[in-house]
Every structure is written in structure tokens, then in C-alpha cells.
């Protein structure tokens, strides 16, 4: 149990942010508005290197101040240590054992390929180390890849806020997907069989 590594699986590892190098790599990825949308809550737009650097600096301060209601990991490829994206567990309410997840892969060669493996690490950390009871992720109604990813990992569609997102000249629903610890455990048992 304790020996099982939390911060790596077959191909990926979870890393701390590298303030000097990571923002330089991430900035071009934010031209993909879907990546920018996951990055922060502001209206999605391309972000400059210095903005991303500032974001991570503030995030590190927040991580220290809030006694852990925010957990950020950069996702790296074990093979060559390349940056692929990030996962964040945010807005943790310890009394209720709940939190929100954000996950995005920006490296073009691994987009649409490695998300499920990154999600596996995020869920394992949320349930086995943070002891959360449930985890929620919000998804834009047009993001079919994310819908498939989360449904495939055992999340259920819980909330559909109608016409809450605007993109490409039309409104879309804002979806909340949730997974309970017991559902994740049940699934892990089935996969192990």
C-alpha cells in the first residue's frame, strides 16, 4: 500500500512546477482556448509567459497559506521529463471531504492520448492521500473528449447548467461530473480482476 508510488505510473510522473522553464512551454499551448479554459477561471485567452509565471507564484503562496485546499502537479513524461500538462485539485472543503479537479494536456504529441493515465494519478491522489469522499470536475458541453474521458473513468453527469458557456457564436451547457470514493474503489476492484 504505502510502497505504491503516488507520483508516477507507467509513463507519467507528477512534478512540482519549474517556474523558470514550464511557463515558457505552456504559453504557446494557451492559444488553444480549451487549454486556456482549464488553466484558470478567467475568460479564456492566450496567456503570456510572465502571466503564467505569476499565476504559479501566487498558486504556491496560496498552497502555503490555505493549509492545503489546493494541490497542483505538473505532468511530465518519465522517458524524457518533457512537460505534458497539469492536474489540480482545488477548493477542497475538508469538513465535507469534497474537491474540484482540473486537468489539461497541452503537449500536442500527447493530447488525446495520455489524459486517462494522468486522471488515474489524480484520482489515486485525491482518494488515497487526500481522503476525499467525492471529486467534481466541470466540463464545457462542447468538449466531447473530456466527456468521454470522465465517463470512461466512472464519473457521472450530475449537473447540466443550461446555456452557461459561450463559444463559437452559440451557448453551450456547463456540465458537472462527479465521482464518489466508493465508485472509484469499486471500479479499481473490477479493473484488478
Amino acid at each position, binding site marked *: 500500500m504505502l510502497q505504491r508510488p503516488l507520483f508516477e505510473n507507467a509513463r507519467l510522473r507528477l512534478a512540482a512546477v519549474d517556474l523558470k522553464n514550464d511557463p515558457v512551454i505552456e504559453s504557446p499551448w494557451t492559444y488553444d482556448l480549451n487549454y486556456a479554459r482549464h488553466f484558470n477561471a478567467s*475568460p479564456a485567452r492566450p496567456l503570456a509567459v510572465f502571466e503564467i509565471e505569476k499565476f504559479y507564484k501566487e498558486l504556491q503562496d496560496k498552497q502555503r497559506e490555505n493549509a492545503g485546499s489546493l494541490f497542483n502537479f505538473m505532468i511530465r513524461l518519465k522517458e524524457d521529463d518533457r512537460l505534458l500538462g497539469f492536474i489540480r485539485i482545488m477548493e477542497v*472543503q475538508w*469538513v*465535507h*471531504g*469534497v474537491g474540484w479537479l482540473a486537468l489539461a494536456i497541452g503537449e500536442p504529441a500527447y493530447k488525446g492520448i495520455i489524459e486517462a493515465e494522468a486522471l488515474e494519478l489524480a484520482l489515486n491522489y485525491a482518494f488515497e492521500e487526500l481522503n476525499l*469522499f*467525492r471529486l*467534481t470536475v466541470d466540463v464545457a458541453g462542447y468538449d466531447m473528449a473530456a466527456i468521454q474521458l470522465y465517463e470512461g473513468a466512472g464519473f*457521472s*453527469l*450530475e*449537473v*447540466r*447548467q*443550461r*446555456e*452557461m*458557456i*459561450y463559444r463559437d457564436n452559440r*451557448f453551450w451547457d456547463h456540465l*458537472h461530473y*462527479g465521482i*464518489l470514493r466508493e465508485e472509484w474503489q469499486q471500479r479499481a476492484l473490477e479493473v484488478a480482476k
Partner: protein
Amino acid sequence: MTIDTFTGKLVRLIVPDLETDPQRTADWSRDSEYMRLYDTDPVKVLSAQSEKEELEKRVARNLWFMIQTLNTQQVIGEVSLGGIDHRVGNAWLGIGIGNRDFWGKGYGTEATRLILGFGFRELNLRRVSLNVIAYNERAIHAYEKIGFVVEGTSRKSILRCGRRWDVIYMGILREEWEARNPPD
């Protein structure tokens, strides 16, 4: 031309008073049942001093009104639209009737209708969202009466009194609001 969007038949919405309201909301915070209906964070007894600072922040960030009764001029609660996103035209509703003598008598319902009218007709909102803990049945009933639709359930999100409770998400679109509240 005078437009009074803020007065109904039972209540009117008034701007907060930094001198008197902080003591009032601090007094309401001693009612743990009220506070547990109002918020998901662990409830605390609040001081007038801290409430004064909080009230200033609330007014800066939200459209924040106190609810006053028309016949006795009592301030009985607060109602707000926060997290306003003008891009998509969404805001989040918050309401609490701190004076429990006025629970279940339509005061909160009318205050909600008044602020929604302001949101849709003045702020040009397209939708208003809220969430509510499932044990707050009185509130859910009032929201449904106003025209809010259940948009989903965050299962077992709240742990209180040794039980897990759902959080219900509700929303109302402008056309749903207009259908129930045609312009004069």
C-alpha cells in the same frame, strides 16, 4: 419618470447600512439553524466588527441588498446577485432571512422576485443560478414557485449531523422568467 424596481407588496430591497447592519447580521449568526441553511462552510458566531469588514467586501463584489418589511420597516434578511459573468449573462443568487419570525410567509420569495426582476430587466442577465442543500426544503419549494428549474444534483456533497446530503443546483433562464412575469 420614477421606476421603483425595488418595492413589492411585503418588502423592499434597500442598500446596506454600515452602521447598523453588521450588528444585525452578527446577531443572526447566533442562530445555527439559520446559518446551516445559509452556507456549506462550518458555521461560526460572527462579531459585528468582522461583519462590518465583510459587508464592505460583499457590497464591492456583489449586488447586495438588505430586505426591509413595508409595514413595520424591519430589516429581516439579505439578498444578492454575485459572481456576475457579463459574457454569458449569468449571476448567482444568495438569500437569507435572518429573522426567523418571517420564515415561510412569502417574504423571501418576494425579495427573490424583486432582485431577479432587477437582474433580468436592468442587468440584462440571461440566466440566474443557485445551489441549495437538499435539507433546505422550504427554500427549494420557494425557488420552484418562482420558476427555478432543477439542473442537477451534486450527490452527497455535504456532511452534517453525521449524514451526507445532496446539493441541488437550480437555474432560471430569462425566457422562463419573462413567461411568468410579463412586462406591465
